[in-house]
């Protein structure tokens, strides 16, 4: 494949080669930190190599062959990466499984990938395997990271990870150069990673990512993805998602940043504040959360506090608008902004944990322009990244260039074009190799070497890409009007009271939406406005809350044309968690699933 030969970083063309080289060179430098009983513990690159190496040797001693699948079913933790890298060093293929998956979904990916070895976090995840073990004869051994609660449990396939470490260390003692030899035999075209994309319709599809995909992503830093050796980052998105794998798995191995594991998905905000990372990648949901925190805090602030924030934001907005218009802010603008920053913004940044960050990035979902502008006003430009599992990160906004609403130009050597239907097509020497066991799906996704992303977008004359929406999400109303729901949904989510929204109206007379309220902020609103409620359901049923959301929708409707106006809405009165099928693991509502599950609620908006 043309161009693939240029995919070399630090003289290496695969991750195992680079990992062995860099981890040896960095030795006692800290690679990662994880909390143990509330205290941060550090692990050096030597530790990283030792643990990953033991796992590799252990798997080899159990008979792992090149291209055998190894799966990991766990929340993020150091062992996740040890098993990931260990499996790759042994020549295996790694399949990360979402820890929120139910046992039947776990069974599907384990069968589809013909997995031989499984790593699970703890007894909770182990139980998912045990429930379906009869259907999984191909699984030879299961290793448990945390044996707590399993004392006395005996099963001939299940072992604690420590047993594997020991076994591997022993096996490796007589074969000091085995891992180097295996790495040397590896090529850039070897299959490395399987990523099952959470199929909103039908079964999940296992995207096959080769070694060169990893190397290419590593090469896009630090020029396009601005993560460097001195960075501290927080790992909190699922590592089985390609984005966190890039930021916390691959880029640190290539460039040496230190990763810190969030204690749990619930403590991300506290961990951010505590660590104040220097490079932050977050999904729009997190950026929205920061914003709504500040807005809520300001609504509670004293008169002076409110006024100060107002004046500071005005000064920041003035500068931001100049930057966005491509005009250099005047000296006066800069002075005003600096004062605002010193007196007001710096405190806000400190409380949010954004005070040390030199680079902030967003991706994995669309983000509202109003939100980007708010951050820029505080002197925090957000880089937008665009990509998908199949292509990797292929566009990024460039430093100092502000084009609101675009995700920036293409990152070479990838190429981009828009076809006649408006769909974004991507071609690169490192793109995915197709979907496992699904030649038909592969053939309809990669056509003449171009990956059909399923996204609709436009290019401006400077080559900046703007994403309109998912092709299949475009709403065509009964009146024949094309509507892009994500645009309206993002505006809705910008409200601190709305956590997520789904716009509905395909083949319907008018457009409506389902709203998931932000529990914390709406409860706070109810409290300050003396609206009695007991639980979440009763909160959603309160007229005052329905009116509150109605008011926000009216405001948003003003910015859209008549045909796009949201005529009706309903609140989803069940508090959803990541385990619920309505939500993706990153807590986004799944459109198709919502359409189905809440069909009666939806029909009630159309007189049904």
């Amino acid at each position: 494949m043309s161009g693939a030969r240029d995919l070399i970083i630090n003289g290496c063309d695969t991750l195992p080669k680079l990992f062995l080289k860099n981890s040896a060179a960095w030795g006692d430098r800290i690679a990662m930190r994880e909390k143990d009983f509330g205290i941060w513990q550090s692990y050096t690159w030597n530790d990283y190599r030792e643990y990953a190496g033991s796992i590799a040797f252990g798997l080899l001693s159990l008979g792992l062959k090149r291209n055998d699948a190894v799966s990991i079913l766990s929340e993020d933790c150091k062992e996740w990466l040890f098993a990931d890298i260990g499996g790759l060093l042994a020549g295996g293929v790694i399949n990360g499984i979402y820890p929120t998956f139910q046992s039947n979904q776990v069974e599907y990916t384990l069968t589809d990938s013909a997995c031989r070895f499984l790593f699970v976090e703890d007894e909770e995840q182990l139980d998912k395997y045990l429930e379906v073990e009869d259907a999984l004869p191909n699984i030879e051994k299961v290793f448990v990271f945390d044996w707590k609660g399993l004392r006395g449990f005996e099963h001939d396939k299940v072992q604690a990870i420590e047993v594997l470490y020991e076994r591997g260390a022993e096996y490796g003692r007589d074969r000091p150069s085995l891992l180097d030899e295996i790495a040397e035999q590896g090529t850039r075209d070897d299959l490395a990673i399987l990523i099952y994309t959470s199929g909103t319709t039908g079964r999940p599809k296992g995207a096959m990512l080769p070694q060169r995909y990893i190397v290419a992503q590593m090469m896009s830093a630090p020029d396009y993805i601005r993560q460097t050796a001195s960075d501290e980052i927080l790992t909190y998105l699922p590592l089985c998602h390609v984005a966190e794998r890039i930021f916390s798995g691959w880029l640190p191995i290539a460039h040496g940043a230190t990763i810190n594991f969030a204690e749990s998905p619930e403590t991300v905000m506290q961990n951010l504040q505590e660590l104040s990372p220097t490079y932050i990648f977050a999904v729009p949901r997190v950026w929205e959360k920061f914003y709504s925190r500040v807005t809520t805090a300001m609504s509670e602030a004293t008169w002076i506090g409110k006024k100060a924030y107002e004046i500071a934001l005005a000064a920041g907005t003035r500068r931001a608008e100049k930057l966005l218009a491509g005009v250099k802010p005047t000296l006066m603008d800069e002075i005003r902004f600096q004062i605002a920053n010193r007196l007001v913004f710096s405190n806000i940044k400190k409380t949010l944990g954004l005070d040390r960050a030199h680079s902030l990035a967003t991706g994995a979902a669309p983000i509202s322009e109003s939100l980007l502008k708010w951050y820029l006003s505080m002197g925090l430009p957000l880089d937008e990244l665009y990509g998908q599992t199949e292509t990797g990160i292929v566009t990024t906004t460039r430093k100092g260039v502000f084009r609101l609403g675009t995700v920036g130009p293409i990152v070479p050597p990838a190429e981009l074009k828009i076809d006649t239907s408006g769909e974004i097509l991507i071609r690169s020497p490192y793109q995915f190799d197709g979907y496992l066991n699904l030649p038909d799906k592969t053939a309809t996704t990669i056509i003449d070497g171009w990956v059909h992303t399923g996204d609709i977008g436009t290019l401006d004359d400077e080559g900046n890409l703007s994403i309109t929406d998912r092709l299949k999400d475009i709403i065509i109303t009964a009146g024949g009007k094309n509507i892009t729901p994500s645009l309206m949904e993002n505006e809705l989510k910008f409200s601190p009271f709305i956590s997520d929204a789904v716009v509905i109206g395909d083949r319907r007379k008018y457009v409506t939406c389902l709203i998931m309220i932000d529990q914390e902020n709406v409860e706070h609103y109810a409290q300050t406005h003396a609206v009695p409620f007991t639980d979440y359901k009763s909160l959603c049923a309160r007229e005052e809350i329905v009116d509150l959301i109605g008011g926000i929708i009216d405001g948003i409707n003003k910015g859209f044309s008549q045909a796009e106006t949201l005529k009706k809405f309903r609140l989803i009165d069940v508090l959803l968690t990541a385990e619920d099928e309505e939500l993706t693991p990153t807590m986004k509502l799944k459109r198709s699933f919502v359409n189905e599950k809440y069909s009666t609620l939806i029909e009630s908006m159309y007189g049904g």
Partner: protein
Amino acid sequence: MNAPLLELRNIETYYGPIMAIRGVSLKVDEGEVVAVLGSNGAGKTTLLKTASGALDSRKGQVLLDGNEIQCRDPDWIARQGVAHVPEGREVFPFLTVDENLAMGAFNRRDKDGVAKDTATVFEYFPILKDLHAKMAGYLSGGQQQMLAIARGFLSRPRLLLLDEPSLGLSPALVAEIFAIIERLNKEQGLTILLVEQNANVALKASSRGYVMEVGGMVMDGTSDSLLESEDIKEFYLGKKDEGIRGRRRWKKRKTWR
């Protein structure tokens, strides 16, 4: 529709800087037994103390018959017909059983009525009659709990606030006391707001229930529906589905549905 006998709206109660209740609303209709469940530190006792005036809320209203009574003196609220049986019994240890009961009736002038009610109480708790001259401090825990409830009843309240009557008692005694609580409700028409950790007995004795967690309400419903809830079963009744290994130590995430 008549106003509920007791209604709490958006109550926020603090201990100094610590917010113990962060926005709680509930209501109790005349003639009902309503249970409030919650683990230690959920704010159940604080809730009762706020209702009876022993603590003042910083925000929100307490309504008795639709009239605001929050932040009034506790003795004034007691005179309006709200009796509070505190957690841990709190009988007067150096007074006799009779004297303790008389303390319960301290604000009543109708001597005959008091005598009649004392007789009623002895009917419900015959053991107290046998021990009537004994100092309360010498009574067993169960007897003291009975005395505390009897003392509360002697003020002839319209609403009885009961704080963890099962605390530290044997299962047999708990069953006995709850049977009497149900009888007091049915036979004497006494409205009861009951705070409990023992979800099983509390939900069986009540018609409706609320669940509190870290200072807020997470669930409410009829007692029957709460008994059927998966989360109540797992977290309050200790019933877990067996799981694949015959035992499951890890806990599911609470959803309160």
